[in-house]
């Protein structure tokens, strides 16, 4: 039995090693992604900055239709701060929707700009987190006269979106611009799963509970089984 179990484990481990070894068979990936500064992903001030950037630069075309404005309180924004970033006519309980007309947008850009509620998750891949993709994407625009908008992107070749942050990039130092984009990525990361922070906190408590439960179950089992000869 011991031997069998060992060989079972060996076989499983061998197979898992094969599975875990990325790029053994996989073809070369796209542009290497820059990692979003890790501390931003849990930094409320960064997320709030990102929210402001989003409302002024992105909301014209992209919605966050799964989120209500009022939920920005989760990242520490006060009611006044939330109202200050809301477009005219919006109420705190409204979903964050763009006023762009989808049919018209299709004519202008070739495709309606996607809703960005879960983009930080959908853009994840084995080459990096979704936030890293967003962070890299927004930093890799370059001028390209052959494109209808005059812009192209190294991370998303042939993208329909022009370089919306161009004036910001022009007026800021590269470090400042990276920080601005990092804040935006951190905000979109929060939006993609607002429960992610409480999830980990609750998870830690659950794990402690289960560890105690496991020890009790183990002792209980031991007590009963000592009679079995």
């Amino acid at each position, binding site marked *: 039995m011991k031997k*069998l179990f060992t060989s079972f484990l060996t076989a499983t481990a061998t197979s898992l090693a094969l*599975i875990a070894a990325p790029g053994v068979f996989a073809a070369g990936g796209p542009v290497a992604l820059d990692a979003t500064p890790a501390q931003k992903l849990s930094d409320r001030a960064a997320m709030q900055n990102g929210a402001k950037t989003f409302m002024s630069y992105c909301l014209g075309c992209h919605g966050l239709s799964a989120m209500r404005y009022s939920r920005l309180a989760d990242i520490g924004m006060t009611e006044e701060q939330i109202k200050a970033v809301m477009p005219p006519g919006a109420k705190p309980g409204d979903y964050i929707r763009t006023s762009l007309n989808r049919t018209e947008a299709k004519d202008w850009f070739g495709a309606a700009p996607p809703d960005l509620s879960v983009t930080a*998750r959908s853009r994840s891949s084995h080459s990096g987190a979704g936030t890293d993709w967003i962070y890299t994407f927004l930093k890799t625009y370059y001028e390209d006269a052959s494109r209808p908008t005059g812009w192209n992107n190294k991370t998303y070749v042939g993208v329909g979106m022009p370089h919306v942050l161009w004036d910001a990039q022009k007026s800021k130092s590269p470090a400042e611009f990276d920080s601005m984009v990092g804040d935006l990525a951190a905000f979109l990361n929060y939006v993609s799963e607002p*429960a992610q922070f409480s*999830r980990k906190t609750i998870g830690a408590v*659950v794990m402690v509970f289960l560890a105690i439960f496991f020890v009790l179950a183990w002792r209980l089992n031991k007590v*009963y089984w000592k009679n079995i000869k």
Partner: protein
Amino acid sequence: MASENNVTTTGLLGWIDTRFPLTKLYKEHLSEYYAPKNFNFFYFFGSLAMVVLALQIITGIFLTMHYKPDASLNAAGVPVAFASVEYIMREVPFGWLIRYMHSTGASAFFVVVYLHMWRGLIYGSYRSPRELIWIFGCAIFLCLMAEAFFGYLLPWGQMSYWGAQVIVNLFSAVPLIGPDLSVWIRGDFVVGDATLNRFFAFHVIAIPLVLVGLVAAHIIALHEVGSNNPDGVEIKKNKNADGIPLDGIPFHPYYSVHDILGIAGFLILFCAVVFFAPELGGYFLEFNNFIPADPLVTPPHIAPVWYFTPFYSMLRAVTDLFTWVMVASAGLGALAVLRARWPMIIKGGAIAALLVLAITFRVFDAKFWGVVIMGGAVVILFFLPWLDHSPVKSIRYRPNWHKALYMVFLVNFFILGYLGVLPPFPFGQAYSLVGTVFYFAFFALMPIWSRIGDFKPVPERVTFKPH
């Protein structure tokens, strides 16, 4: 007519027992169900499968309270079904927890069921008199696959949509009725709202109903004949004066406390995923499935979830080249029949049938045979009790090369699974072909190889070291 029942209990329990066999059921299935005392690690997974089934049903009920099977677009241009999942994730209190438990539970179900099946395979738990337990189990596995497939469409992401599209399209390869069949399954010419609604109906009621019934049959059959064990020894052969197996112990309390320990261990791993890695690197929740379904944009790479990938590899292995392999197998089969000592008429009939089959292998589309191979990979499991002719049940007493063969089978299954995740590439395709042939040869030739080798003597009693 109803016979006089011997009720020994009194009070409320006595009142119930004269009307419903409560105490009788409790004794038969728990306190006086004698299980072998030498169960090992692999014997946790039956009870764990029940736990996961219960988790899936309970979380599923709560999910249906807010989920909407509706493919139309909402005001923001997001499909209602997709948006309702995000609504659960954000606006329903602890909706995220229920959803992650359900999505992780789907993968966990396959993890425990695969381990449970592996246990049955190596210890010969399918051998007489347990053939029906095994057959019910295989039917449960089939139901589970259907359940997972239908459920995977519901979040209405790109992988949901295109995965369903690919699988339903396979049915269009069935000769003659194929195109009509696939339209009938979808309820439309493409996967759409009609498909989503019927898959929802199958996922929440039709399949679970069958599944629960099969689980009941699986357990009733098990408790009728008694559990096998890692030694493959029948404990009912050695009983004491009271008719209690000498190597048996009551399920309750011994295995109930034991299974609680298993559940505690399982929950630690399960909750680690739910709370800290619900996507599990894209294997439990695929990244592309966070893009709403778009019938106009085909994703560059469509991969099923990990638990289907070994079978998906087999499907992809069936190309034109593979149909020649199938023709060759039919030819070898015909040769074997020729040498068999059967009456001429049966021999002639069998050879003629094999030759006709060999011709159809080339006449019908390879895509159709891919579907047959993929389905056959599961169906062949049903026949296992009659394929295994080894003189011993448990792998412990089999020749060493049998053990090696089972390990090769396991590794092959893992590799096929890994290749099924990746986009097709030449080496992978070549391996899948060999791996698929090996998978089928393992079972098809089992009546021959399982008898060969030096088997070790099986002890009279189970081997057990007190803890």
